[in-house]
Structures are given as structure tokens and as C-alpha cells.
């Protein structure tokens, strides 16, 4: 007998089958994921998901007998009271009791339930938005630096002297310039001494003295270590991404924001969150909603509770500034902010908001994205809202403020891409 331990064999033997299955059921899964992501909280988005999809298109048909009709005989166990000739009323839905029939895979019209892993869920979710990989590379670098070794230099402080490199240069130079070795000099000296003692062959002695002189002068002219040889370790400042980020979600929750608008905003926030989690080890989210006053709230409240009141945007910015000062020093945190609004603002507040944004918020944030959500049906692109005009005044080419308008779901991703491609981080819609 052979006994083989297969437990350490590579896992995921059926991974390829699973990919084929996901590809096959793509449309259904896409739909399910889309629905699921509507229901989930932002921070949950990246967890695996049990989803359930309809069986259409996943059926494996085969010729089989219909479950009804015709004449059938069954043999069944456990007779208790029947004798030959007894009649048994049929069960209401006529289904053959037991018997040899029955779909082999127990299949029916039921939905098909299975579990998507975190990565699969994300892939499909992002795929739905056609998020290209390149975007990830273009996010702005954060501003903290670290020193890393970067080769050698000819200048530097003595503490950074690289002895090995220096000695190597020295050796090669000494060989190239034929600096006499100490052992050669020693030999000549020894011979001279021997000749001086014995006193014979004065001819040879004077030759040797001359040679010794040459050797000594040569070794004086070619130094053991020349400043040319010296090398120092070189260090470079490399920007180090701060591994934590905080994301501020600001939203206007006054009555004029419809469910549709909130849904658009939520999707945008989700994307931003996903984006940041792929980039940073740790991402905090702060939800700030505002009417005529602003408050930091939890996610549930942020999206689902309604509030009435006017619209004063600067309150949200003030609140954000307060939270930053309190908990997120810009030196330690990458600060991102996304604001969603339908563009309304009390006109007296505009100047204040612009000032806050320009002088307090923008200098501290990596990025501030403003999206203006609009009703699906209304053609509102022609008119500029108060807030839009206000922010436009702050907008600078190459600055870290970006603004876009979004009306339907399919526009979210393109806007997102626009916002986060570095070169085009400015500009108008």
C-alpha cells in the first residue's frame, strides 16, 4: 500500500473552475453585488458577501422525464397497514412520492446561494464601475520623508565614510600607478644591509641604493590614500506615505437632498473609501452632516436620518476643522475630504465658506473633492448653483480642490477618475 499525504498540496485546485463560474454568472452576480452594495455600510464594503443569484443561465439541462404524467410504479419501504388493493389519495401537488425520479442535483427554480470572497466582491464591485488600475498610482503622494541609502558620494561627513569602497578605490589606484609595495622596499633594504655588512660588490650596492631612493620617492608621490579615493555613503530623502488616512464625508442633509442624491453621494463615498483602503493601512472615516448647523454623526444617522433646516455650508467646514484640530494632526494623517451637496447654500454664507476652505481646510488636506449631485431627470447643468460658484472662486490650477457634477449612477466612476488623475485634478466639468 501507498499512503500519501496530500494535505500540503497547493490549495485552490478548483479556483479556475470558480473563475469560470463567476464569469459565466457575471450578469447575475453583477446585479446582486450592485444591490448588496446599496444595502451595506461603507466600511463593510470590503468584506466577503453571501449573495444569491437566480438560476437562469446556470441551468445544466438534460433530457429527463417530466415529473408528472404517465403511469408509474414505485416500491417503497415501511408498509404498516396497507393490503393489496388499497387506494391511497394522491397528495395535492401530485408529486410522485419518493420513487426513483427527482432531479439529480435536487435543483429547482430556487435562487442559487453562494459566498463571494472579499477580493471577488471588490473585483466585481469595482468592475461595475470600470475602475482601471492606473488610477491607483496617480493618487497624490503624502508629505512625510525618510532617509534611505542611495549609493555613494564623494562628499559627506566623516561619520558616513565608506571604508570598504574607499580602500577598494585606493588599492586599484595604487596598482594602476605602480606604487611600490612595502615588501619590495623591504627586500631592497635587506639586500643593501647584507652587502654593507659583507662589503663586497660595491657596484651592486650603489645600484641598489639608487633603486631604494626611487622606490621611496615613488611611494611618497603615490599616496596610500588619496582624497580621490574617499567615498561616503549617500542618503536620500524619500517621501514616505503616512500609513493612515482619515476621510471626511461631508453632506448636506437638508430637505432638498433627495434619496437619489444621497444614493449617489453614498456611492461616491464608498469608492473613495475603497480607494483609500487600498492605499493606506488604516483609514478612519468621519461623517459630518449639516443643515444650518453641522454635527459629526455615525454612518447610520448620516445616510438615513432626516433633518430639517436651512443650509449653511460653512458650519460643516468649521466642524471638520474642529475635528482635525482635535484628533487628526495633519503631520500624522493623510486627510481626504469629500463633500456632497445639491449646491444650495445660504447666500450670506458663501464668502465665509470660501474663506474657510481656502485658508483653513485646503492647506491641511491632501485632497478635497466636491461633488454636486443632481436630480436624475432635471436638466440642471445649465445653471450654476451658489456653492458651485463659491467653490469655483477657490479653485486653482494644480490645487488640491476638485469639483464635479453627478446626475446618474453611471457618471460616478468617470468623475472619480477625473478627480484622482493628478494632471487633471483641476479644471471644470
Amino acid at each position, binding site marked *: 500500500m501507498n499512503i500519501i499525504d496530500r494535505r500540503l498540496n497547493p490549495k485552490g485546485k478548483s479556483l479556475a473552475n470558480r473563475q469560470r463560474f463567476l464569469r459565466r*454568472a457575471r450578469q447575475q452576480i453583477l446585479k446582486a453585488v450592485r444591490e448588496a452594495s446599496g444595502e451595506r455600510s461603507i466600511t463593510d464594503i470590503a468584506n466577503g458577501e453571501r449573495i444569491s443569484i437566480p438560476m437562469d443561465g446556470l441551468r445544466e439541462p438534460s*433530457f429527463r*422525464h417530466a415529473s408528472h404524467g404517465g403511469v408509474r410504479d414505485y416500491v417503497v*419501504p415501511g408498509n404498516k397497514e396497507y393490503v*393489496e388493493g388499497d387506494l391511497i389519495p*394522491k397528495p395535492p401537488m401530485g408529486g410522485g412520492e419518493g*420513487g426513483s425520479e427527482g432531479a439529480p442535483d435536487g435543483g429547482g427554480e430556487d435562487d442559487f*446561494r453562494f459566498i463571494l470572497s472579499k477580493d471577488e466582491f471588490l473585483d466585481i464591485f469595482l468592475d461595475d464601475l470600470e475602475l482601471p488600475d492606473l488610477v491607483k498610482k496617480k493618487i497624490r503622494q503624502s508629505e512625510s520623508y525618510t532617509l534611505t541609502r542611495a549609493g555613494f558620494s564623494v562628499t559627506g561627513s566623516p561619520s558616513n565614510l565608506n571604508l570598504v569602497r574607499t580602500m577598494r578605490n585606493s588599492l586599484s589606484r595604487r596598482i594602476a600607478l605602480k606604487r611600490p609595495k612595502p615588501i619590495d622596499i623591504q627586500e631592497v633594504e635587506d639586500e643593501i644591509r647584507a652587502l654593507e655588512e659583507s662589503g663586497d660588490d660595491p657596484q651592486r650596492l650603489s645600484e641598489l641604493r639608487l633603486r631604494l631612493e626611487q622606490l621611496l620617492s615613488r611611494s611618497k608621490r603615490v599616496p596610500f590614500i588619496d582624497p580621490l579615493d574617499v567615498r561616503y555613503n549617500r542618503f536620500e530623502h524619500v517621501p514616505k506615505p503616512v500609513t493612515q488616512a482619515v476621510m471626511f464625508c461631508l453632506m448636506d442633509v437638508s430637505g432638498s437632498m433627495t434619496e437619489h442624491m444621497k444614493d449617489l453621494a453614498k456611492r461616491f463615498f464608498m469608492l473613495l473609501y475603497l480607494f483609500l483602503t487600498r492605499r493606506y493601512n488604516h483609514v478612519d472615516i468621519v461623517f459630518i452632516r449639516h443643515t444650518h448647523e453641522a454635527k459629526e454623526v455615525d454612518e447610520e444617522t448620516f445616510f438615513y436620518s432626516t433633518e430639517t433646516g436651512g443650509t449653511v455650508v460653512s458650519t460643516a467646514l468649521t466642524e471638520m476643522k474642529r475635528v482635525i484640530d482635535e484628533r487628526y494632526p495633519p503631520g500624522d494623517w493623510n486627510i481626504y475630504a469629500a463633500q456632497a451637496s445639491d449646491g444650495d447654500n445660504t447666500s450670506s454664507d458663501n464668502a465665509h465658506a470660501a474663506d474657510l476652505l481656502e485658508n483653513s481646510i485646503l492647506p491641511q488636506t491632501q485632497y478635497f473633492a466636491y461633488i454636486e449631485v443632481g436630480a436624475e431627470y432635471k436638466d440642471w447643468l445649465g445653471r450654476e448653483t451658489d456653492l458651485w460658484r463659491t467653490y469655483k472662486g477657490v479653485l486653482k490650477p494644480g490645487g488640491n480642490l476638485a469639483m464635479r457634477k453627478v446626475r446618474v449612477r453611471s457618471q460616478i466612476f468617470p468623475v472619480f477618475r477625473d478627480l484622482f488623475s493628478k494632471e487633471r485634478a483641476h479644471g471644470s466639468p
Partner: protein
Amino acid sequence: MALREATPADQALLFEGADWDFDKVRRAFDVIETIAKGEFGLDTYPNQVEVITAEQMLDAYSSIGLPLMYKHWSFGKRFAQDEVLYRKGMRGLAYEIVINSSPCISYIMEENSMAMQTLVIAHAAFGHNHFFKNNSLFKQWTDAHGILDYMEFAKAFITRCEERHGHHVVERVLDAAHALMNHGVHRYPRKRGYDLRQEQEREKERQAYFEQTYNDLWRTVPKSPATYQGSRELAERKKRLRLPEENILYFLEKTAPKLQPWQREILRIVRNISQYFYPQKQTKVMNEGCATMVHYHIIHQLHERKLITDGAFMEILHSHTNVVFQPDFDDPRYGGLNPYALGFGMMQDIKRICEQPTGEDREWFPEFAGNNDPWGTLRAAWADFRDESFIQQFLSPALIRKMRLFKVHNDDDAPDMEVTAIHNERGYRAVRKALARSYDISHHECDIQIVDVDLAGDRRLVLQHRVTNGILLDEDEAILVLRHIANLWGYEVRLIEVDAETEMTLREYDDVAPTINLA
């Protein structure tokens, strides 16, 4: 008794406690082997036991139990399904999977206790293995030595096709082939073609016969009418295409006009796999019965010889009892006859008849009642029968009484079902016959044949379903399958359902045209 002395490790326990390790497994295997080969006279392929994890077991499930399988989404679907059920705890995993190959591979799970490993080895590595090697159906239809190599080829071939022609196209061919998998089987050995020399001899014989029996009078008989001429043409055409043909995949592989060579090869692969599993479908009861019978008696032997503790023995008996549990028809757990219960019951009964027959047994089974050679009798039965004939031959009145089997007749037109036979003198044969019939594969697989194709004309393929007992096809499924056939065939396909007895047409499907062009 001689065996007892031949086993040196006899007195020491094989194992204690639940943990297993490779040494213990090997020791248990060796002892089981001596019992199985010596006492029961089993004859097996060489064994290979592989230890796997639960996840690998799920993997093995999804690729219909073969260790090597090509890639297809349906396997991924099955995996996802099984995984959900398993994680929810709705379904435990099998303790083992065994593969009809040489060497015979048995997978055992690492989670099993040592007692379970012992059970599994007895069950799979000896019970199933013996059955695979000796049953005539397996001998005739499967090549245990070649299957792993063939699967390796199949997997590589399909991967190559995917690389060359794209996943999508290959998937379509496989989808279509899978839909026809049950109809990709040769049920009878095929007639061998004649070679040229034989053909010439036959021709000569025919001529000689013709000359011998020549009678000028036949010339004066009036010529047949034109319609007859037409049907002769049809007959001629069918003969040339070797129609009717029930192996649809085979026919398409050989005859479909538009398929590429690689597509034909894929059909062939699916067909071969289907053929490989064909005996297993026909011997579920016997195969499981054989394995259960073997493990049951081996475990008893081990316990009698004090090689396993009482605790291990009870643990094994507990899972044995679960396996052969047969709920009554009115029990909510009832889901048809349990092949383990029926097979094990019948084989235990055969053993009893061999050893302690009653008068009734002697009357019903004069050939082996009281012959005192239960294992010889069982080995003969395992070798020469399949479920249907096994039940027909060996189901005894005693077991019918014990299981209280009865036969129910269900006519869809009648208001009620009728009990037509129960476990009494008058009913035994009827019950036995009906039960045997229900295990006949031709009974629950649809009899569908390709009956005509006009290659010179519109190339429409005509299929016929011969309907027995008025049970038609499931219409929705049938239309989907027809679409697959049409895609492979490349032209229209028609299906007619004909009553097998009266030749009346019961239902006709609309012609289905190909929806995609595979070529």
C-alpha cells in the same frame, strides 16, 4: 484459525484513542488486508491511500470524484453549492472518496478519527476496490489502468483548446456536450466492421446464394409502388449512417458536418468520461452494499480478535448504523430507498441463506441455500450482476417482509394511487420485479435516438423519444438540450415523442435552429 496465528500483532491493540498517524493507518491497513484477502477472498487493485483536508474533499466533490478533471464552470458551481451547505453545517462531508483506477485511490479526510480511518479503509480500499476490479460491467466498460492517464490527456487537451480558441468557444462545446452526457454511452458492445477480405467473402456467398435460389418467376411479380421505393431509400440511408443511433454524442462526433476536429475531440472526451461512469450508475446498490458488507464484517473480525477497543467498535458501529438507516415512506426523512440499506440488507440476507436457510429460502434459492460458502456466493454475485439483475435474482421474501416493501401504482389519470402488491405470498414476485425494474437504467433514463437525417437535403436531424408508460420529457429542459444539439449539429433539429407500444406520436417539438455558430 490458522490466520490468527499468522498475525503476530494479534494480541496488541491496533490503536487507542482518536488520533491517527501514518504508522497506525499502515498497521490497520495491513491487518485489514490479511482479513480481507484471507478470510473473505477479496481480490483488489493495489491500494493508494491519500490523506486530504476538508477543502480538498470539496474540490474532489466538485470534479465528480476524479482526481484530474478539465476546467468548467459547472464544477465551480457545484463547489460553491457544496461549500455553502458545508459551511452552514447542513451537510457533512463524505468520509472518503474512492476512484476506480489502478492503483485504486482512496481519499481519507484528516478530520476523521482513527476508528473512522479504519472503517474507511475497510470500506473503500477493500470493499469498493474489490467490486471495481471484479464486477463484469466495470471489466467490460472501464479501463482502470488507463483512466488517470486519459484524464491527464483530457485536461491538457482542453486547456490547450482554451488557449488556442478562447475560453468562450470551448465552454460552449462543453456545455452542449455535458447536456448530452447521459446520451453519450454505448450500452452494448458495438459490432465490429468487416475488413476488405471478409467483405469480399460475404459478397461471394451472397452471389452464390442468389444464383442457387434464382427463380425466373420473381421477374413477373409487379413492381412495388413508389412510396415503397421511398421508404427503401430511407432505410438505405439510415443503414449507411448506422441509424437509429442512441449514442447522440458519438453520432455528432462522427457525423456533424460543421464541427472542427478539436471540437469532435472534446465530444469524445466527454463521451469517454460518461462511459467510464456508466457502470457506476448501474451498480449503486451493489457497489455500496459490497463495501458496507465488507467493512461491517472486517470491523467485527477486528473486534473479535481484540484488535480494536470497545469504544472504537461502538464509534464505527454508530456511523455504520447511520449509513444503513432506512426511514419509512411516511417518515419526513424519507428520500427514496437508501442504496446502502438495500444493498447491505440483501447481502446480509444472502449470507444468512448460505448459513442458516429456512424452508422458504431453500425453495426460492435452491442454488446456494445452505451451501455454507457465503463469501464465495457473494463474490460470484458481485462479479456477474448489476443492480437490476441482482435484485431480480437475490431479493428474498424474508427481506421484503423485513423492510415491509410494497408496490404502489400511480396512474396520472386515476384519482388515487393503488397498492398493488405487499409483502405476502402473492406479492413477493411483483414487488421484486418492480423494484428490479426501477433500478434498470433504461427505466429512468430517457430512450432517445437519432432516427433520421437527410444529409443530401436540408440536413435536419430527427430525434425520437420512445415513450414508455406515457411519461413524456420535461419540456423546458428538452428545448434547452435541443438547442445544444442544434448548435453542435449546425442545422435544424427536431424531436418527436412516440409511444413505444402504439407508435403514436404524442408530442412534437418545433424545429430548433442553431443559435450560435460554433465553427
